[in-house]
């Protein structure tokens, strides 16, 4: 057993230690190597202690704060250095020169740039993101309206991306070079390369205008706003309608999510299929998979419990980043489907030189990036024990 023991240890280690659990349960005498009862404990390469994990979290948090502050400094500087007249924009066209000067002072615009920045940072720490120059509304109030709307749409699209993209990627990999594989790959390329605005308008043309199957846009129908309004608790219409047992509104809100969700998910679906397929094919060629086949393990087990777990991490990392990108990147979807989201809000702020909004939204998005990156890293160590925290 000597050389074979080392060989098997090595091969088992490639599977992240999982394969041994299944080897001990494989049919007696089944497969090439028979029933090896030698490996009763999965090998783990995660040797991180609790203290190491704690240090890791602290380091990441410190880094996160540094990143967020860095982002705010850069965006604040750019937004304020672009020539603009916030006081004039604040007052509108009928302002007198004297009013413009006084308003500049009132808004603190006459102070040095670094002083303006620290004042802003102090306010943010207290939860005050300032006032929008264009709308004269507290920015936090606008964020409370637009952010849940965006997150609801993005979450839904990510659910679609994961539940459609990953299984199709696995199927495509397992049926490599068959007609099904080609069809799935075509579907992936179509989704990844179709312009969002074109896809959205085509879907509206057929599913709305021609066949009247789905609503044109908005988060809920006008009828719901008129006769079954959703009481705002979290700002997520799905959650709020469940909490208030407004089942009519819940159905309506879900239906309104379908079209924009599909459009927003399309690129991520294509990405998920291609990444999953590519990684699955690579993993499937590894020796521990060969060993699993040799032991006669069930194909479902091999594909989903052994291969996919090793292949899925890159896909999830990319989808995580796509999630954060969509928070402000979904502007076309928001406009076409009348979705009151953060992307549209930010774009209008850029066009209107509304720098407090620009800086605030940059801050919010950078926080999201940091949190999502952190969670993805944690997820990665959870899925793949080969990744040591230290």
């Amino acid at each position: 057993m000597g050389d074979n023991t080392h060989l098997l240890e090595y091969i088992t280690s490639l599977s992240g230690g999982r394969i041994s659990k299944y080897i001990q349960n494989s049919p007696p005498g089944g497969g090439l190597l028979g029933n090896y009862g030698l490996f009763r404990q999965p090998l783990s390469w995660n040797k991180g202690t609790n203290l190491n994990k704690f240090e890791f979290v602290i380091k990441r948090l410190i880094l996160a704060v540094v990143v967020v502050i860095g982002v705010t400094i850069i965006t604040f500087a750019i937004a304020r250095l672009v020539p603009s007249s916030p006081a004039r924009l604040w007052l509108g066209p009928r302002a007198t020169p004297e009013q413009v000067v006084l308003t500049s002072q009132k808004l603190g615009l006459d102070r040095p740039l670094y002083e303006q920045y620290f004042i802003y940072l102090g306010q943010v720490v207290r939860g005050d993101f300032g006032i929008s120059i264009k709308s004269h509304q507290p920015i936090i109030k606008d964020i409370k309206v637009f952010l849940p709307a965006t997150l609801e749409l993005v979450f839904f699209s990510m659910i679609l991306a994961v539940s459609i993209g990953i299984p199709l990627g696995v199927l495509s990999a397992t049926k490599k070079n068959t007609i099904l594989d080609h069809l799935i790959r075509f579907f992936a390329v179509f989704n990844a390369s179709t312009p969002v605005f074109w896809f959205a308008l085509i879907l509206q043309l057929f599913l709305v205008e021609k066949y009247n199957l789905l609503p044109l846009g908005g988060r809920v129908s006008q009828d719901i706003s008129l006769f079954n309004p959703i009481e705002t608790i979290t700002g997520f219409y799905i959650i709020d309608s469940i909490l208030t047992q407004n089942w009519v509104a819940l159905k309506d809100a879900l239906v309104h999510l379908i079209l924009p969700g599909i459009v927003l998910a399309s690129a991520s679906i294509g990405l998920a299929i291609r990444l999953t397929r590519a990684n699955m094919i690579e993993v499937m060629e590894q020796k521990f998979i060969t060993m699993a086949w040799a032991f006669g393990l069930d194909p479902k087990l091999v594909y989903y419990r052994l291969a996919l777990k090793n292949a899925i991490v890159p896909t999830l990392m990319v989808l995580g980043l796509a999630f954060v990108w969509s928070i402000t990147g979904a502007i076309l979807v928001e406009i076409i489907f009348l979705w009151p989201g953060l992307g549209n809000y930010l774009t209008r702020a850029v066009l209107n030189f509304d720098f407090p909004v620009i800086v605030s939204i940059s801050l919010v998005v950078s926080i999201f990036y940091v949190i999502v990156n952190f969670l993805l890293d944690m997820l990665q160590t959870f899925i793949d024990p080969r990744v040591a925290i230290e």
Partner: protein
Amino acid sequence: MIKRLIILLIAVAMLGSVFGCSPAPVDEPDSGEQAEVPDQPAAADDEVNVATFIMWQDFIDLDMRFAFASEISATLLCYENLVYYDPNSGEFSPGLATDWDVNDDGTEWTFVLREGVKFQDGADFNAAAVKSTVEFYTADEFSPSAWLWGPVESVEVIDDYTVKITLSFPAPFDIITSSAFVAGMISPNVVDQPKEWFDEGRCVGTGPYTIESFEQGQRLIMTKFDDYWGGWQENQYDKVVFEIVLDSVIAEQMMKSGDATFYRDWPSDKLEEAVANESLEVSSSESYAVMAFNLNTAKPPLDNKLVRQALAYSFPYEQFTERTGGYYTQPRGVISPHMWGHGEDLFQYTYDLDKARDLLVEAGYPDGGFDLEVTYMSDFAAEAWAVELWSFPLEELGIKVVPQGMTYESMVERLDSDPATAQDITPMVWYLTYVNPYDVLYFDYSCEGDAWTNFSRFCDPVFDELINEGFELSATELVAATEKFIAAQEILVDESPAVLVAVVPQIWVYGADVEGFVDNPAYPNVVFFHDLTISE
């Protein structure tokens, strides 16, 4: 296998329940009825007439002190003025005031108020309410309302229904109180509320509609005020929904499918589609706004009057009218044809390249030989067409047009820079605050108050004096005031600080079942829904 089949069946059943039970979108363009909503008491929507008004931008300021933009589409349904402007008679008609009088020098205005009017919160409308409203408008010196009500020195309650307003200088106060902006009467119970209170979606006026709910970025819903002094009859609208729709293609789809009742921004070159659609009506009238391409008179060669006149002769006016489907027509002077102060005999430039060339030769630019940077609003199609059409004759004159589409804010920022580096030509469409020529003449061409909306940087003391005199005279002598304003426009026409391109039309597309709609250009973008009924 069986397990997979069961899972598949469950999934299909769930999808089917979502599609099958969801409220169907409205698709009956002629009925004016709402689609039946499952699980609703049928009586709830059967008895309610709902109008949908498409808004091209979100509501920003619902506080009347700051409502100086598209908010008036909603606020004018809630808040009523003392006086309104009637474009048919060219006079001012009673609103919440039934009569008014002015002293000889135009500084004391006495209004007799309408009796029996209630605010939407039950408070009485009376002289004390007028006083508290004026104080509300003038309290914040930085608010636009403070500018409009600036002439007010004091408000005196004579009796419950008579109020005297004293001005610090002569001013046409009847005109001012008829303004589309910041002039509606507000309940005394809410005048102490902060701006945020109103902006969250509240209004308390005397008007026929009040705000029921406001979903920022989506819609604002107004519902009828049952005790409105004007009363109600059958087949009027019970609710008005303002849908925020930023994309014109979506807006057109909504109109065609019957999901919307009123839309104002239908592209003028695609109006034949709306005209041909039997479920839609199209109404077009001239607004009080004139599109003017302002020339930077502080920068050579536009500091030369001859060059400016040459440019005025080079614009293809008829071609532009044709391009816009016939809706944008060449103005005569700065004041729209249907508004008082319009000069019917004012000189009008024509498209004449020979004359333009002669003027350029006289100015010392025989072959043109200079570039003109023209900025325009990228989301205003008519401006883009104007720039495009103008570039061809200018090229024939040896002048190269450098077009720059941008947002309004970016345009203003460029203008604010050093005149030597600012853009050469900037279009402007000024929507009047109130129906008085002084408004546009002052803000667009006066340098006296250093208004930053004077895009051409035009400065002429004689012009300023004329318009100031006109303003004072308009308090008591409209005929004399008109003469002053026409004389001021003669200066403008001669000096040509702007090429006056077109009178901007007000084009409405609305449902064919709507009756009684008459556009009032004094109140741009406003539909007075109480005046409408739905045909059977």
